[in-house]
């Protein structure tokens, strides 16, 4: 019984339950379970092209989620991944299309990614500053700024004075010009696979964040801040600065991810280029519960699910939104069972005398 209550087991059960609902929905849309599963698996693992595409998505998810975890450790919830991806993508495009054509990769690529990180940081700095100095909930402000960020991308790719490619005919698409050759993320060189070095960057970032949070003073200070802000302040943690940098850092991670999205084929900025990665990244970060290993595992699962979902629509005629339904059900199931499982675990461990009524802890975030 107690083994079934382990967080990982709860998460696995939630995923399984959500997948079953997904299968039922696909059935409603007229696809039998076998077709659904085979289309899904085909889209995830069928070809080396599919695997490469999925891996690129996984890299983006990992980066957004790693940033989310940093802020979460400090007690802040970053719901603004989508907007920060947009900011990063816009900055990367501005630099990547502005550089002279022959710029070598060792100059262009770092320039593009640093610009993306800086833009993501700046985008998250607004809610961070408002939170730190005015006490405004970062959840609401980061959320609202997503809408601003998405509209900003639309603006950038529709106005010729901004980032739109030169309009030559009425059929010119509203998107940016392609990034210069040097700014393209190098592919890993696997045969017929579009997988880029993005996944390597993301894994390195995960390891770095894991070490930062687990084995350094900074990580300890952030954790203290997240658990008990007042105690942390009394122990000398610079609360305002730590919070500001944690949320800004989360933005920088998402910004880099946005930069990587435009530095991957077809190397342009277009409306909808974030394709919901900001939200999925948040899901990954929440489900990982601070463990980088779990984060990598969940990112792989969701990343492959999303790319499998596209094939689901192409082959089985099941709307790709089925995957989003499954994704949101996973969160709801886990959110619903986590508090319950925690109490059951506590009850199994120590049937102690009950204290008087108290406020229950908010699950997860220290609010």
């Amino acid at each position, binding site marked *: 019984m107690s083994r079934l209550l382990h967080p990982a087991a709860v998460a696995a059960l939630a995923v399984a339950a959500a997948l079953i609902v997904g299968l039922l*929905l696909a059935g*409603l*849309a007229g696809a039998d379970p076998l077709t659904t599963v085979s289309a899904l698996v085909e889209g995830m693992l069928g070809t080396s092209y599919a695997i490469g595409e999925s891996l690129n998505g996984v890299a983006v998810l990992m980066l957004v989620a790693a940033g989310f975890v940093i802020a979460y450790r400090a007690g802040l*919830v970053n*719901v603004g991944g989508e907007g920060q991806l947009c900011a990063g993508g816009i900055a990367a495009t501005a630099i990547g299309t502005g550089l002279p054509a022959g710029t070598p990769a060792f100059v262009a690529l770092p320039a593009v990614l640093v610009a993306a990180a800086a833009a993501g940081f700046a985008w998250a700095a*607004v809610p961070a500053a*408002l939170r730190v100095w*005015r*006490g*405004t*909930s970062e*959840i*609401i*402000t980061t*959320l*609202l*700024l997503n*809408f*601003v960020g998405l*509209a*900003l991308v*639309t*603006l950038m790719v*529709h*106005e010729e004075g901004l980032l739109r490619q030169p309009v030559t005919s009425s059929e010119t698409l509203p998107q940016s010009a392609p990034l210069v050759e040097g700014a393209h993320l190098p592919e890993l060189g696997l045969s017929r696979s579009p997988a880029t070095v993005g996944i390597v960057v993301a894994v390195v970032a995960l390891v770095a964040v894991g070490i930062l949070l687990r084995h350094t003073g900074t990580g300890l200070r952030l954790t203290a801040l997240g658990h008990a802000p007042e105690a942390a302040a009394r122990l000398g943690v610079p609360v305002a600065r730590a919070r500001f940098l944690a949320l800004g850092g989360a933005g920088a991670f998402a910004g880099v991810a946005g930069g990587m999205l435009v530095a991957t084929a077809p190397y342009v900025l277009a409306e909808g280029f974030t394709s919901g990665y900001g*939200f999925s990244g*948040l*899901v990954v970060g*929440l489900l990982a519960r601070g463990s980088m290993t779990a984060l990598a595992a969940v990112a792989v699962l969701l990343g492959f699910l999303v790319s499998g979902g596209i094939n689901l629509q192409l082959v089985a005629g099941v*709307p790709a*939104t*089925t995957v*989003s*339904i499954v*994704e*949101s*059900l996973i*969160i*709801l199931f886990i*959110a*619903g*069972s*986590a*508090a*319950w499982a925690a109490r059951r675990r506590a009850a199994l461990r120590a049937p102690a005398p*009950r*204290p*008087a*009524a*108290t*406020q*229950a802890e*908010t*699950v*997860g*975030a220290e*609010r």
Partner: protein
Amino acid sequence: MTLLTQILVSGIGFALPLLVAAVGELVSERAGALNLSLEGMMLSGAFTAVLGAVTTGSPWLGALAGILGGLLLGAAQAVLSVRALADQIVVGIAANALALAATTFGARLLLADRGREVPAFDRIAIPVLHDIPVVGPALFGQTPLGWVCVLVVVVTAVLLGPRTGRGLRIDATGEDAVAADRTGLPVRRVRALCILLTSAMAGLAGAQLALSEVRAFSDNMTAGIGYLAVVAVIAGRWRATGTVLAAVLFGLAQALQYALPALGVAVPPAVLTMIPYVIAVVAISGLAGSSRAPSCLTVPFARA
């Protein structure tokens, strides 16, 4: 109709659904329950309203279906956040994603071939009052469902106001749930009922949007209005008057998207899309210092 009148008509048109949702959300938040899922409740309401209207051929049954659609998501929010003590914010955001995906899925499946002719509500001009210059058509040219919305807002604000017995009980659960529990108030039941009321009103708001304004369902048609309604409560400092004013302001900001191009002002549409959200960020950051949220907002309650 003069241009100003047109701006006001479409401004009030946007403001009314936002207003209904915001006044409902105010009740929940005073009880200590934050529903970020308001956006999803409105979208579900809009979807089920159109589905109901198309299926039955009656806009009134459609509106009823819209309320039920909102309630469905509200029940999930109530069970998860009040009963299962889940994080209200996480549940809210996930519920929105679920509503967006599920309504898109449902629209493909159920509305694809017959979504075109939706039995909707027509505007009724109230004699004399409708002819008041400038503001007349905006205020007195609502659809029947629009009048229901106004009625619901007024009744909710009056019956559950902070000086009524019910209102006091709601405020008590939101300010100090432990003390409220000790005095014998059923904290969880109060909160669950408030969330259900909120979701029913959000469903009504979605129905108003779909059956009175847009007269159709389109994917993600609420496009952030629900979030603006949540912000309207914060910007309105958890008071009914403030919330109403903020909701009208956001509605007018939305209407600018259509009014400015009509005025001949060449502003890219994307800039106009941003305006309400930028105003919302400014509104809550400017006011947060001088207002105080209910103490127990987002804190789940359980007897230990």
